[in-house]
């Protein structure tokens, strides 16, 4: 199905002076698509040219439309010599191919040159007419929507989640072609930018085809990565989750949930899925590479390739041993069987999503990860990426088997990454083993009144995901199981690690915090197989160390679960860097973590003992302080019910003894045992010999290092919280103040003979200092939370360590206000699933009474407790813990309000006024702009002179206090910047600072041109920085992605009182 692409060049502004003699420029524009090029007239002697060109029309195949970018080149006309290029703009026209996204691209784009950076701006109009409207998207993957967001996008409803899609394309890297020796750096950079743009277009189209074959219409959690393999070429690969999404119209929003039965019984989108599901094509069909000759070739090469598969670890709570492959025992529920069959049809039951509609996630097993070290080999035929495919296939199989070992049939929060140094490459994949509700995998599932289904669930959803999915008699690793502290019916592990976001329904005590484990390991420089072997030998130790650090730090904070766990291992010539980040929380359903106990050497050295004691004291102090800081008030249920508690204890010890699984080899200094909070300690008989703590023995340097790293982590300053997940548990009343930022640091190691310890310290300090700097910089936003803190580490050169962070700082209202109840309900909905957003009013009006009735229900369930009404005020446990606390808050506030009734109302009007003023600020033509607008006109320059749209950016999937009303398409941009005058541009920092600012500017310009005002799920995937200060040169590659959206403030609609304050507080952000 062909289409017609139309482009019009309107004007330019702020062009650079290209003719020194006249201080002016004779600019014209070349517009290129595929092999067709058009030119505008030369607009002589002007820095703000008004071309106002005709419509340039390109008649092209839709395949090209998907693959190719529109390429706009601005040049300076020169009568005597060759025309000088000023710069280029690449416009991805994919958003125009989807009927629901943007219809026109129109706006000012920065003119970008890989050597000079941004040089002026150009105003462009682009439209696409697709022929054959009736059957618009049948033949190609045009119209498949792509989302970077790793949850169901906010204005959609998931009719069906089909599953994993993956694809990769390879090509030679222009930088390494022979021609690169004779062409200019600019030409080489542009060739690379263009190639990667083409490759990602192609990749997206191919993924789209797979989605259509599966019967879906969208890819959610689309993750695209580049592997710059140097001599071996470029690999562009992508994974995602195919879904069938239904758009929720604004009006339907209100009804969709309350009247599910009025929805059409079978959706039009679903109909083709039936056929394709059985078809083998659904999985990894690659129609373009089917030449048998080539494939045998590659098979041979595969065998030549050096490849080491690293024994990987499964992190499921305590389990740090090897993955003892035990099949899950007999299934507990019929439900699981259904899911199993639904999922077994899939080759890889993986989901890149990290947030799920309520009820989707049934149980979570733990983190599964796999790594593999490979030696890169030149890709001889770009049309044949089988080798790379086979590598990933291997890894995915491993992940799948790990998940099986945990008794799970699916992997959620799945991601893949690589680290390359010279010819060695580590491929990594990680995810969370889980059991999913099959409803979403079956057709038309959601049409059968999803509300009714929820009541059939065997376990309360708020703690269900914590319950172990594996059979307790056949545990895949040694873990301490207890009965769930919430429902007391199912078993839960004592610690839970996951790569997903905290489920909305989860009951959490207190707030969460960012926990990082950092590790450096030196290695000898080596080549080829020797190098790869030494790396793969180091990997398991690194993983183990990182895991231990995480566990220690988690305990130190008195928390029992990690979410959003991401472990990155980076290779350099002479070292390996490991960085694990996660958000620690206290899950009410899991047992209270015990303390950390320090044990000294066996010898009775007095000074040593004292040393041990002082460390113990510091650790205890730190734990107490952390508990207070994160407001962790563990539930008291079991403490009040010692009998039940003992019962469990007994049971557990029996289990542990009779466990048929041999304990995997563990380091002797680690003894993990039953853990309970210190509150219970007094009531327990400790003579059982069960140590109620996590013991650290300081008998070797490693342990000293561990303790050191434990205690050097400075807590964030007052008023700051941080997490690497979408939202911070325990913080709900966000204001609209937000600041997305990227910070990059490179450290040069000067010391030639470093030890592992000193290197570790340097690396840890580097990360800590970076965090401190961030807190300092953002201090004006207090109280504030750094969300989605994403660290990436790299070893760009021998003695360099690079750390890049992208995150968003969001400020919140500290004082709990009466509206909190309603707000909270709305927030949860907004953060996770539209279903909930549809009745925020209902919820907030009734939740108080609901909470009360639930609470009483709970009381009767625990007789001892109901007997002691005097203690009611301290209730903070169980499945309704969070609601209870809000309910209590409500009571407290009501009392408060009675005491100072008038004050309350005045505050509310104040907040109203504030919200009005904040909404004024985001109006398209803010006050103050108009003045500059006028002056632009009067000065005669400017051209157009429209004010610049404010574009918000966030790595989260939502913007607090707003509603996303439209997704305009995916933003996926790749830029190269190079300089041969590094000193003149302010050194490496000046160079990179400018470049990152330019990347932001170009992202904002593209979003604004699509008609959007924000980017959500923004991420910087790649930031490769290379320098050669002696030659005064530097080069940097950046790849960013996100979803362009249109948002409206909640207050722009008729202001529902409960919604108001989410957007008030109106500090217009960070200044």
């Amino acid at each position, binding site marked *: 199905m062909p289409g017609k692409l139309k482009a019009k060049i309107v004007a330019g502004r702020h062009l650079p002076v290209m003719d020194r003699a006249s201080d002016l420029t004779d600019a014209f524009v070349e517009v290129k698509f595929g092999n067709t090029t058009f030119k505008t007239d030369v607009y002589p002697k002007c820095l703000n040219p008004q071309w106002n060109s005709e419509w340039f029309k390109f008649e092209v195949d839709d395949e090209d439309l998907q693959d190719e970018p529109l390429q706009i080149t601005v040049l300076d006309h020169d009568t005597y010599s060759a025309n000088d290029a000023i710069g280029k703009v690449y416009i991805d026209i994919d958003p125009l191919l989807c009927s629901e996204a943007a219809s026109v691209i129109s706006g000012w784009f920065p003119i970008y040159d890989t050597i000079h950076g941004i040089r002026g701006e150009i105003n462009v109009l682009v439209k696409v007419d697709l022929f054959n409207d009736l059957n618009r998207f049948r033949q190609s993957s045009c119209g498949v929507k792509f989302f970077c967001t790793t949850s169901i996008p906010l204005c959609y409803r998931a009719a069906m989640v089909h599953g994993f899609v993956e694809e990769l394309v390879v090509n030679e890297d222009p930088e390494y072609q022979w021609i690169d020796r004779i062409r200019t750096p600019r030409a080489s950079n542009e060739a690379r930018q263009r190639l990667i743009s083409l490759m990602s277009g192609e990749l997206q189209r191919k993924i789209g085809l797979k989605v259509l074959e599966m019967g879906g219409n969208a890819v959610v959690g689309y993750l695209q990565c580049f592997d710059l393999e140097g001599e071996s070429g470029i690999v562009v690969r992508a994974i995602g989750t195919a879904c069938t999404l239904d758009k929720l119209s604004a009006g339907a929003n209100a009804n969709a949930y309350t009247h599910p039965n009025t929805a059409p019984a079978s959706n039009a989108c679903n109909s083709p899925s039936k056929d394709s599901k059985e078809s083998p094509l659904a999985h990894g069909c690659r129609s373009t590479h089917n030449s048998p000759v080539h494939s045998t070739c590659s098979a041979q090469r595969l065998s030549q390739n050096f490849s080491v598969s690293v024994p990987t670890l499964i992190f499921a709570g305590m389990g740090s041993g090897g993955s003892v492959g035990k099949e899950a025992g007999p299934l507990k529920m019929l439900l699981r069987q259904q899911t199993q069959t639904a999922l077994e049809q899939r080759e890889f039951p993986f989901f890149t999503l990290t947030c799920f509609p309520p009820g989707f996630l049934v149980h979570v097993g733990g983190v599964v990860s796999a790594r593999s070290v490979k030696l890169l080999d030149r890709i001889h035929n770009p049309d044949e990426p089988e080798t790379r495919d086979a590598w990933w296939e291997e890894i995915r199989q491993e992940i799948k088997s790990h998940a099986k070992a945990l008794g799970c049939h699916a992997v959620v929060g799945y991601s893949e990454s690589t680290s390359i140094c010279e010819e060695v490459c580590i491929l990594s994949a990680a995810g969370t083993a889980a059991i999913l509700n099959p409803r979403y995998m079956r057709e038309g599932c959601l049409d059968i009144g999803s509300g009714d289904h929820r009541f059939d669930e065997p376990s309360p959803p708020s703690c269900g995901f914590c319950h172990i999915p594996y059979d307790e008699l056949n545990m895949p690793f040694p873990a301490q199981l207890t009965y769930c502290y919430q429902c007391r019916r199912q078993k839960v592990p004592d610690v839970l690690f996951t790569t997903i976001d905290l489920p909305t329904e989860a009951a959490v005590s207190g707030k969460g915090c960012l926990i990082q484990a950092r590790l450096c390991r030196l290695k000898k420089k080596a080549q080829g197989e020797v190098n790869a072997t030494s790396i793969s030998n180091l990997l398991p130790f690194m993983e183990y160390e990182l895991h231990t650090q995480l566990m220690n730090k988690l305990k130190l904070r008195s928390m029992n679960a990690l979410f959003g766990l991401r472990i990155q291992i980076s290779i350099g010539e002479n070292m390996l860097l490991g960085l694990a980040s996660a958000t620690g929380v206290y899950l009410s359903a899991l047992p209270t973590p015990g303390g950390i106990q320090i044990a000294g050497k066996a010898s009775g050295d007095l000074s040593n003992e004292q040393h041990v004691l002082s460390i113990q004291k510091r650790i205890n102090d730190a734990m107490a302080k952390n508990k207070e800081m994160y407001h962790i008030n563990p539930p008291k249920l079991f403490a009040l019910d010692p009998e039940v508690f003992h019962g469990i204890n007994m049971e557990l010890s029996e289990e542990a003894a009779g466990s048929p699984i041999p304990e995997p080899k563990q380091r002797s200094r680690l003894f993990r045992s039953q853990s309970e909070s210190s509150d219970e300690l007094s009531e327990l008989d400790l003579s059982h010999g069960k140590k109620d703590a996590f013991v650290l023995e300081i008998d070797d340097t490693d342990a000293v290092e561990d303790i050191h790293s434990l205690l050097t982590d400075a807590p964030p300053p007052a008023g700051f919280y941080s997490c690497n997940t979408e939202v911070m548990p325990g913080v709900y009343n966000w204001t609209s103040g937000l600041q997305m930022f990227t910070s990059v640091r490179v450290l040069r190691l000067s010391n030639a003979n470093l030890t592992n310890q000193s290197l570790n310290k340097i690396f840890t300090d580097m990360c800590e200092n970076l965090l401190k700097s961030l807190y300092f*910089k953002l201090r004006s936003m207090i109280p504030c939370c750094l969300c989605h803190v994403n660290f990436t580490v790299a070893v760009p050169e021998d003695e360099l360590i690079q750390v890049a962070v992208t995150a968003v700082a969001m400020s919140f209202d500290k004082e709990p206000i009466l509206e909190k109840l309603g707000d909270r309900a709305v927030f949860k909905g907004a953060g996770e699933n539209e279903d909930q957003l549809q009745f925020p009013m209902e919820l907030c009006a009734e939740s108080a009474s609901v909470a009360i009735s639930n609470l009483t229900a709970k009381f009767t369930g625990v007789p001892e407790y109901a007997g002691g009404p005097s203690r009611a005020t301290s209730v903070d446990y169980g499945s309704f813990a969070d609601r209870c606390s809000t309910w209590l808050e409500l009571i407290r506030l009501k009392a408060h309000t009675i005491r100072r009734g008038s004050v309350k109302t005045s505050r509310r009007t104040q907040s109203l006024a504030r919200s009005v003023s904040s909404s004024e600020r985001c109006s398209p033509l803010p006050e103050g702009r108009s003045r500059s607008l006028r002056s632009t006109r009067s000065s005669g320059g400017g051209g157009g002179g429209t004010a610049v749209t404010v574009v918000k950016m966030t790595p989260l999937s939502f913007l607090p206090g707003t509603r996303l009303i439209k997704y305009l398409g995916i933003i996926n941009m790749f830029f190269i910047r190079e300089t041969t005058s590094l000193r003149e541009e302010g050194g490496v920092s000046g160079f990179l600072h400018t470049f990152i600012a330019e990347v*932001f500017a170009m992202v904002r310009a593209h979003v604004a041109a699509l008609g959007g005002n924000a980017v959500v799920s923004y991420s910087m995937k790649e930031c490769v920085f290379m320098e050669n200060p002696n030659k005064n040169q530097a080069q940097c590659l950046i790849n960013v992605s996100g979803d362009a959206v249109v948002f409206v403030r909640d207050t722009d609609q008729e202001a529902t009182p409960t919604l108001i304050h989410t957007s008030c507080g109106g500090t217009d952000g960070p*200044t």
Partner: protein
Amino acid sequence: MAVELDVFVGNTTIMDEEVYQLWLDGYTVNDAVKVRMVSEGMEEYEASAEVVMSDTMDQYRTFQMCERLLHNPTKLANQLLFQIPPHRQAMLIERYYTFDDVFVREVLGKKLSKGTKKDLDDVSSKTGITLKSCRRQFDNFKRVFKVVEELKGPLVENIRQNFILSDKLARDYAAIVFFANNRFETGKRKLQYLTFQDFAFCAGQLIKNWTVGAVGESVFLYVLDNMVEDMDVDLDKEFLQDLKELKILITDKDLLDQHKSLVCTALRGKTKVYTEMETNFKNLSRGLVNIAAKLTNTKDVRDFFIDLVEKFIEPCRSDRWASADMRLYLTHYTNSAHLLDTFKYQVVWDRYMGVIKSCIFKMYHD
């Protein structure tokens, strides 16, 4: 263990006003860090020197990147590189163009040339303002001068629109441009006691009343037709010619006596320094009228303020006139001229004396 590279880039450009001021004041990064370390509220964030250093470097870099745009403030509003909220943009511009009164006093009325710029290190050591800051302020004057030099229309409005400044600051710049263009002498010892604000006020009066642009709408159109440039920057030549006619007030003996008696009648009993006024009348009147008559010479225009001080303000001050006396005297001096039957130049007289009066009021410090 050197930090090779350290950058922080926010989607909304973060700018700390305090650091901005330090940068504008020409502090080096190290000095700025020292100042910041002891300033209030730092201990609250447990900020180490390292952290403050990193932040300061970042901000300085941002300011340097912005400086190019600040040279052309209208660009700041529609550039795409930095996302800065409008009120922050206004703050950046306003602060960038704000100058030190001490500094401007040193260069006020001087030619904004390379030569003057070379002498800035003397100004710097004299005023205690860093050379960097002096250069910025000087370059600002020069830039504004260059831009408005080529523009038609009212001076203040031109400055305000091209540099997006507040009304007050635009007026101050108009004064600086006006002084630089007419090269008024302000550096003599006798004028040292006057502040920049005194001069700025006078400049405002001169611009408002004595330039071509001051003569009202009809003249304004006429000016546009004739493409007369710098209508607010140059004094109205015709008016200066007309001022010569005022000489009759001192050359005609009858007129002088008549004027004196009218003024004295009006003043009698209303002031303590009546006798001094009476004895000095002729001297003072000659002084003021002579200033008027000589203004056709560029040289004498330059000496306008020094003449005012020497010929009028100093004699009065030595006689210990109070400000109120001065007001009274000048009011009656001006008004009485209208009662002189043979004095035909009432309009020119008012236009002249109106400005002189307000200038002297401003310049006469008790």
